[in-house]
């Protein structure tokens, strides 16, 4: 009897499709994955169903659009079927090792279906004990406050003050001994892979599902020195990296000034990808040494991309759904299959979980919105596809409920065109992706009416899709979870809740 296959899913935070070698990036960010891609299915146009992380993962793990249960539902609802719970129910041992993204925590329901769930949050990291707080001279602080108060009386002096204060803070920080590890606020991929490897080694013959979430390309960008050396930039010191990160993170700085740091920031970001790639290769070596690689299905993807001023923005806030934010790499290795580069159809990650389950011969839960494309993929094909991506415009702090109740931003994309609907101001714009892949020139409002209408029909179908029978229950459970969490936080804070949650 043949052993049932195991599944390893690696998600890399902020991983843009156009920064991996197997999709054409010239810098050697992913030498290992480039080799693996030769024997894998490569999806040239994998598109997330939501961005950033908190809008992306409900689709990756539960094959559900992020707003389908209501805008106020964050994460996976209690008892909502997921990739993990579907496999767990069929006898797979399940484990997750996550690099401390707070939106993927137990609080947001991501432990659903996992026998082992290790979320390494910031408190597990070594602390930099050389903080200068407390060392500050009180007289100097008073003087600073006085200068600030006076400088803020007009715009020019305020800008001058901010510049000087920024440089002073950088100078102060540069007096400390800094390391990339000490500056990085989350564990690097080697920590996550160490834990996952030791878990793999402890497994018997049972099939397993292992999910790793790596944060290395996430800002602030502090890659290990080895990764910088691997991409030919061993010259970058931790203090230079700190200065660039601090400069890149400054608010109220115009795009022209930020451009000065862009190339260096991209280098740091690329080194983060390189480190993730190196550690993925180590993970696979562990699978090989444990004699599990030959029966392990392996998938690697990103939860969203990252912006480097292409449209004037940094990081990955849900303010737009340009391709640098929604187009991610996706590579699927299936033992015994040669793999190939698939057609350039937009493959939504809403279909990833059902496709993976199909590869493993496990039926998808009926709650999954996506479909399996394994029958097509296994033949090296994809049908004509349309990918929908959604988020709440400007929702930067989803842990605050009020922040989640804004207007939807929706993009609908096929292989040639993309329509972006901003419900906040009732506008839609359309891009010709073949002639304008960077999405810099929206087509005139009346151009390509048939193509635009086709994508708008998909948008209409998406926003009017009726809830599934189980949605009210999941919504109720998710609301209850949040209600109890709020109570628990208040209890810990020993504050009365009445007045905070208003009782009418």
């Amino acid at each position, binding site marked *: 009897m043949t052993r049932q296959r195991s599944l390893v899913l690696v998600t890399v935070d902020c991983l843009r499709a156009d920064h991996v070698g197997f999709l054409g990036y010239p810098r050697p960010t992913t030498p290992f994955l480039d080799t693996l891609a030769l024997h894998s299915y490569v999806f040239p146009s994998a598109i997330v169903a939501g961005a950033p992380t908190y809008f992306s993962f409900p689709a990756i793990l539960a094959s559900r659009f992020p707003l389908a249960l*209501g805008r106020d539902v964050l994460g996976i609802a209690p008892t909502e079927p997921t990739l993990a719970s579907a496999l767990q129910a069929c006898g797979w041992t399940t484990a997750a090792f996550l690099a401390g993204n707070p939106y993927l925590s137990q609080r947001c329901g991501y432990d659903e279906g996992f026998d082992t769930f290790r979320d390494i949050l910031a408190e597990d990291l070594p602390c930099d004990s050389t903080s200068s707080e407390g060392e500050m001279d009180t007289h100097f602080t008073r003087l600073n406050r006085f200068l600030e108060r006076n400088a803020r009386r007009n715009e020019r002096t305020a800008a001058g003050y901010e510049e000087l204060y920024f440089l002073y803070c950088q100078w102060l920080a540069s007096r400390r001994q800094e390391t990339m590890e000490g500056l990085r606020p989350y564990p690097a991929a080697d920590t996550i892979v160490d834990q996952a490897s030791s878990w793999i080694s402890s497994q018997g013959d049972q099939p397993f599902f292992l999910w790793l979430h790596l944060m290395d390309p996430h800002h602030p960008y502090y890659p290990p020195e080895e990764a910088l050396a691997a991409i030919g930039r061993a010259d970058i010191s931790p203090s230079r990296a700190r200065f660039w990160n601090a400069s890149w993170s400054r608010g109220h700085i115009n795009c022209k000034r930020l451009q000065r740091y862009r190339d260096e920031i991209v280098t740091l970001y690329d080194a983060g990808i390189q480190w993730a790639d190196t550690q993925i290769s180590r993970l696979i070596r562990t699978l090989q040494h444990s004699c599990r690689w030959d029966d392990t299905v392996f998938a690697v993807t990103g939860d969203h991309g990252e912006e480097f001023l292409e449209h004037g923005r940094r990081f990955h806030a849900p303010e737009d759904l340009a391709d640098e934010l929604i187009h991610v790499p996706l590579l699927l290795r299936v033992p015994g299959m040669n793999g190939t580069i698939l057609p350039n159809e937009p493959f939504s990650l809403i279909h990833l979980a059902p496709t993976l389950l199909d590869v493993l011969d496990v039926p998808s839960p009926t709650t999954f919105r996506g479909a399996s494309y394994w029958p097509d993929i296994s033949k090296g094909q994809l049908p004509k596809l349309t990918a929908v991506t959604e988020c709440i415009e400007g929702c930067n702090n989803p842990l605050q409920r009020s922040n989640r*109740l804004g207007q939807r931003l929706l993009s609908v994309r096929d292989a040639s065109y993309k329509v972006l609907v901003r419900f906040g101001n009732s506008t839609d714009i359309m891009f010709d992706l073949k002639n304008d892949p960077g999405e810099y020139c929206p087509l005139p409002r009346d151009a390509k*009416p048939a193509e635009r*209408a086709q994508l708008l029909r998909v948008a209409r179908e998406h*926003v009017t899709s009726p809830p599934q029978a189980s949605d009210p229950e999941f919504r109720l459970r998710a609301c209850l979870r949040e209600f109890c969490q709020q109570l628990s936080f208040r209890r810990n804070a020993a504050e009365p*809740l*009445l007045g905070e949650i208003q009782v*009418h």
Partner: protein
Amino acid sequence: MTEFCNVRLTAELCAKAEQRFGMHFDSISDLLTCLLEELLRDDIGHFQQAEQKIVEERLRDLGYI
């Protein structure tokens, strides 16, 4: 004038709820009111109609409805 309904709960359940949530709420009625209001908040219908209207108006502009 606001009308009120009576809800029957077991004394044991009430005692447990008071023990656990008593410091946050003055009474079981307050707790249940707060909980039900929280659960009944529903944005889906409200947003769905507005969004449908926006997309359909655009399709109408283009002559496809």
